[in-house]
């Protein structure tokens, strides 16, 4: 049946080798780059569907953070007297500036965590680097983020808060938020393929995570000796960085760099875990 293989050493003929993979997977970033258009199309699809299916659509992107801000202001600021720490801005602006990266993060987790199982019809029928799926789920949170950001601008104008020159670093912190979201999403989406109870864990995780992140209170509330531990949470750095870029005052401390380092740890480990599990997705999903 099989004859001796004649390796076609033709010039310019792309050759694909399929073999069982061993050990840790390679990241294959070059291949990922080749599929950038698919990433674009899937992101575009997610965004279209988000706004086509939701009756409130764009309004939701405004209402969600604004209503949360109002509730937090009443509960934490007015009733529990939580302040804004080193930031000399009104509490509503302070809390909204924290909610902005937080919602980007939590929205990504919720949609990207489910993304692989939700797209099982794609995974079992077509090959492409699976990273594209959670990747597009995270990127499709950006329009919501931008809408919420526009509301922040209005809010800051209304409270006459003038941003400092640090605001030029805002894109960097947005990127940091995206990388954090991506890292955690990679872990969750891959785990969800393997373990179906992850879908119940995600909402719980998001909820708990918000309380251990400086969304509704300033980091100055954390005792100094525990600050290093608190900074192991990547979102501590992201949210802190956001507020610093907007309202200035204190330069990022060494604790910020610990948080930023944790972002890298989560992202890189997520990437490797995802790549390693990727080969069995089609068999399990």
């Amino acid at each position, binding site marked *: 049946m099989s004859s001796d*293989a004649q390796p*076609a050493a033709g010039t310019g003929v792309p050759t694909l080798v399929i*073999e069982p993979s061993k050990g840790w997977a390679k990241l294959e970033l070059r291949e990922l780059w080749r599929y950038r258009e*698919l990433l674009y199309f899937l992101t575009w699809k997610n965004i279209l569907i988000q706004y086509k*299916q939701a009756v409130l659509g764009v309004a939701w992107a405004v209402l969600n953070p604004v209503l949360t801000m109002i509730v937090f202001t009443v509960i934490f600021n007015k009733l529990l007297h939580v302040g804004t720490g080193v930031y000399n801005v009104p509490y509503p602006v302070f809390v909204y500036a924290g909610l902005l990266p937080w919602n980007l993060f939590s929205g990504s987790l919720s949609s990207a965590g489910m993304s692989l199982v939700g797209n099982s019809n794609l995974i079992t029928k*077509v090959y*492409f680097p699976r990273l594209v799926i959670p990747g597009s789920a995270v990127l499709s949170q950006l329009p919501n983020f931008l809408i919420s950001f526009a509301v922040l601008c209005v809010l800051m104008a209304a409270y006459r808060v003038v941003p400092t020159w640090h605001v030029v670093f805002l894109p960097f912190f947005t990127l940091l938020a995206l990388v954090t979201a991506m890292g955690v999403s990679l872990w969750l989406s891959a*785990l969800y393929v393997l373990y179906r109870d992850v879908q119940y864990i995600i909402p719980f995780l998001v909820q708990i995570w918000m309380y251990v992140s400086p969304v509704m209170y300033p980091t100055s509330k954390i005792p100094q000796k525990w600050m290093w531990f608190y900074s192991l949470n990547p979102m501590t750095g992201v949210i802190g960085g956001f507020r610093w870029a907007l309202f200035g005052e204190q330069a990022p401390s060494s604790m910020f760099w610990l948080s930023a380092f944790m972002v890298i740890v989560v992202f890189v480990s997520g990437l490797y875990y995802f790549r390693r599990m990727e080969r069995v997705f089609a068999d399990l999903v």
Partner: protein
Amino acid sequence: MSTAIEISGLGKRYMIGAAQQRADTLRDAITNAATRPLRRLRHAGSSTGHVSTMWALREVSLDVEAGQVVGVIGRNGAGKSTLLKILTRITEPTTGRVEIHGRVGSLLEVGTGFHQELSGRENVYLNGAILGMTRAEIGSKFDEIVEFSEIAEFLDTPVKRYSTGMYVRLAFAVAAHLEPEILLVDEVLSVGDVAFQRKCLGQMGAIAGSGRTVFLVSHNMGAVRGLCSRVVEIEQGHLVADGPADEIVGNYVAKQLAGSGSVLDLPRPLGDPDELLITAVRVLDDEGETHGPFRSSQPIFIEIDVDVVRPNAAYQVGFDLLSGGGLVLRTWHTDGPPDDWPELTVGHTTLRSVIPPGLLNEGSYAVAPRADAYRSHWIVNGDEAIWFEVVKDHLDSPFSWVRNPGPLAPLLDWRTASSRGSTA
């Protein structure tokens, strides 16, 4: 001639019972991890335990020359789809190696990634990208795709308002405009109406004729015969036959006939255990005998055993009657007016249909059971077929000892309508 696909020693092993063994929830995984040392102590020595494995594909080696059109045939569960899934990189092999020289396109399903809420236009771009086309490529072929699909006026309508036919047309139109050097195709020809099927076959034929390498997995013996120059047969994970299409298909059909008579013995029920299962299919004569050959002058009964798990008024159970040449005649248990439909209630039902006497010609025929939820989705998609043989004995003509061409031989009425000759 250069080699387009080199497959050597390819194998794929699945864990059976792994679903029970493997922790399905994180909770179990954690409990397992916590109690593992304890279990190790208790069952010292039997560490790997009772996980049994199944080779879906074993030691398959095959070379495909560039420009060859190769058909892969075999029963359901023989390993055809696993082979295709490895070649398309959807799943990884356990052993062996494949080298593919050239740009690969794969088509395991038409309309992969179509979204109900999106318009036809949006879905063309999305589906094209999923199939590996670049934006520029889709853009340049967009008009051709629309023309091929014949649904230009509904292009901006959400796909959810499309009929099944329109949906399939559009989906196939995108797929038919893939231009890879090597095309890997699964059973995708059995969709759409007859006219459109023919058009698709023509388009596939054009691809096959243009020097491209095609690797086609199919149950449609007619299509395999018509399109492929070479056919390989897979049985229980092994490659058991390889040769010219006519010879291999002929032997395969003969083997099916010689097999277990006209009872489709299913290794596992067909369908969805949450909805509806087809557990057996029988072809019987009027005395209840299942071995052929069947006489065309007698009724031939088709019995399908159905287990309904979840009731649904939209279920349709039926079968395709296929001739050896690939002609399809489809019938559903809901073909008549609603009052006449046999009832499908939860539990076990045997449906019986009859091929009337005096319809079939002499030859081999197959019955492929089907089930669907009307306009929603397939539950059994004609993947498994049962073959039987018919001898023609319903025509008394002294001339009918030769076999007329075609799958049907009904006795049609003939009389003189007018005559102008002299009667004297």
